[in-house]
């Protein structure tokens, strides 16, 4: 186990007025729990604004969680995991935090924003190495940068160029090179393919899979593309309005979605066969409710076709159903 996320919440305060008093909260993330181990990929799906990116950023410590805990097992102590795990908090011990920064990296959605336009590729890739003082000399640093570029399928000569000279796919490769520079144990992939065209998407996904095999890294793979998620994940978490509504293996989830929201998502996948182009019947109406004032009870009850009285007042818990499967729905869990 690398990471255990326990009931993590993230509320963004809405500040108003001259004195910046908190007028309310954007409830981006509600009590999310999961574990992730070496070599594992957990896919996170959901529509825009469901908290996928927030989850990734809370884990990457870009944001501090409002409540809940994140446990991190330092390298080499995986066996007696929980006992050795360090909690990642607002003021974690410096050395632990440093290791955590080294071990958990991130790849971003927008390849045009994720590379500093004023730095050369070489400088961009050297930054993590310099921060953690991995290379002893300038020559070693340059050598490492060249190796990184080769690893992601680019030429070492590119080190002296600037990001604007590259295409979207190449930039995403550079982002990947930066993420693996420190040999992290976990990478948060925040929609790494959604800004790319389809042919490049598959290259990037294959690259990520190859690197995973080589380094035994864990991926938290965030996407709204169900096909991609199906392809890469060992586990899939379906999120709706900051809540995890279902966790399952890809096969189970795609064949037999248990949560009404998951089945609605499945129906929205276009068919690859042009003869049967029509989508499944759309059962989902309207927009997701605002996370500032989420509905009472089940967050999905305002749009659910099987809504019951109980759903409006009673929030379903994410409960185990059968083997390796969790769902948060009153229909399934009594």
């Amino acid at each position: 186990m690398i990471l255990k996320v326990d009931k993590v919440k993230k509320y963004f305060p809405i500040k108003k007025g001259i004195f910046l008093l908190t007028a309310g909260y954007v409830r981006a993330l509600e009590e999310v729990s999961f574990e992730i181990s070496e070599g594992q990929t957990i896919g996170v799906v959901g529509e825009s604004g469901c908290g996928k990116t927030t989850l990734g950023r809370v884990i990457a410590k870009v944001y501090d969680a409002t409540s809940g805990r994140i446990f991190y097992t330092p390298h080499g102590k995986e066996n007696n995991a929980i006992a050795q795990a360090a909690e990642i908090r607002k003021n974690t011990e410096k050395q632990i935090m440093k290791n955590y920064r080294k071990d958990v990296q991130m790849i971003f959605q927008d390849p045009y924003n994720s590379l500093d336009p004023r730095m050369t590729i070489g400088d961009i890739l050297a930054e993590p190495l310099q921060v953690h003082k991995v290379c002893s000399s300038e020559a070693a640093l340059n050598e490492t940068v060249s190796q990184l570029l080769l690893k992601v399928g680019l030429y070492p000569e590119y080190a002296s160029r600037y990001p604007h000279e590259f295409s979207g796919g190449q930039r995403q490769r550079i982002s990947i090179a930066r993420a693996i520079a420190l040999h992290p144990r976990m990478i948060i992939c925040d929609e790494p393919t959604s800004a790319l065209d389809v042919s490049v998407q598959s290259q990037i996904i294959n690259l990520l899979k190859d690197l995973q095999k080589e380094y035994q890294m864990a991926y938290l793979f965030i996407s709204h593309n169900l096909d991609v998620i199906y392809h890469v994940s060992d586990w899939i978490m379906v999120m709706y309005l900051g809540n995890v509504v279902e966790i399952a293996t890809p096969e189970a989830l795609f064949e037999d979605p248990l949560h009404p929201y998951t089945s609605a998502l499945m129906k929205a996948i276009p068919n690859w066969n042009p003869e049967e182009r029509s989508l499944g019947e759309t059962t989902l109406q309207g927009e997701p409710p605002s996370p500032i004032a989420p509905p009472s009870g089940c967050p999905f009850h305002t749009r659910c076709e099987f809504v019951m009285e109980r759903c409006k007042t009673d929030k379903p818990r994410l409960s185990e159903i059968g083997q390796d499967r969790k769902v948060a729905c009153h229909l399934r869990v009594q």
Partner: protein
Amino acid sequence: MKDSQTSARVRRAFFKHKLGMVGLVILAILYLTILFADVISPYNYLETHRNFEHVPPSRIRWKHEDEWKGPFVYGVKKVRDPETLAVSYQEDQTKIYPIYWFTQGETYKFLGLWETDFHLFGLGKEAKGFLFLFGADRFGRDVFSRILQGGRVSLTAGLIGTFISVVIGAIIGALSGYFGGWIDTLIQRFIEILRSFPRIPLWLTLALILPPGWPSTWVYLGIVVVLAFIGWMGVARVVRGMTLSLREKEFVIASRIVGQSNFKIITKHLLPNMMTYLVVVATLSIPGMILGESAISFLGLGIKEPMTSWGLLLKQAQSLSEIEAHPWLMLPGIFIMVSVLSFNFVGDALRDALDPYRTVEKV
């Protein structure tokens, strides 16, 4: 190689801006002139000439009694109005003083280093007449020489003051925007309070703090610091705004995830990405500095005699009767106007070239 296409586009856009080019040429001439002010000016700006108080600008003549003589000036003689006893000057056409290039004149220290009496042009060392291009002031000092010398103070105070204020403004603005929260609130309210004071009284108060016993060069530095003290706030606000938008960019977040320190993030990622805007802001805030120095000196709290600046020169033209009797004392005002306009033109050209979407407003 760096951003080759972008920089080529920027250069092209900059050089295509006509007003900006006019401004640039004028500024180049002005700065060259003040650099060689001692050589170009025909007289030592400190030298007083008795019996030549308030002499009007000399007319440069070419012909004497229809005979070609080359450039020369006539001598002047003082005449008194028999009724009002007012003094006025008339050309004395019996005396002819030719103008020479590369001649000798009053001694001065070239760039403060060594003594010389070489001048670009003048009437020569022995001439009894005077070449007052822009007239003389009430001590008989050559206004043209004094304007050149005053330009040294006025034009450099603007540059140095802007440099200091951009440095302070960039640091404080970046801190305010990057850390946000109560630091941001504190800094922003502080800036608002300072900015809500009327500018001129604030300048004057700060200028009053400078001890009157200070030597001129110290006073000059003091004035520059006073100007910078007011000027950084506008820069800080612009930088804060840009920091707010930049810090959410994914490359900054990526740098944080790697574990980069806040200081390095600001210096390596945020400030370099703002550099072009800072250049524009700086150029556009130089005119304000020049005007500020002039205002302080005009009101008598800035540069002190015998050092001089354009604002201090204008001080002599404070009363209406002075302007009526000696209109040439207004000439430094034209220099202020021209240099301020030129900086504005260059600043606009730079902005159009570097910042086509006009993210920066004037500060």
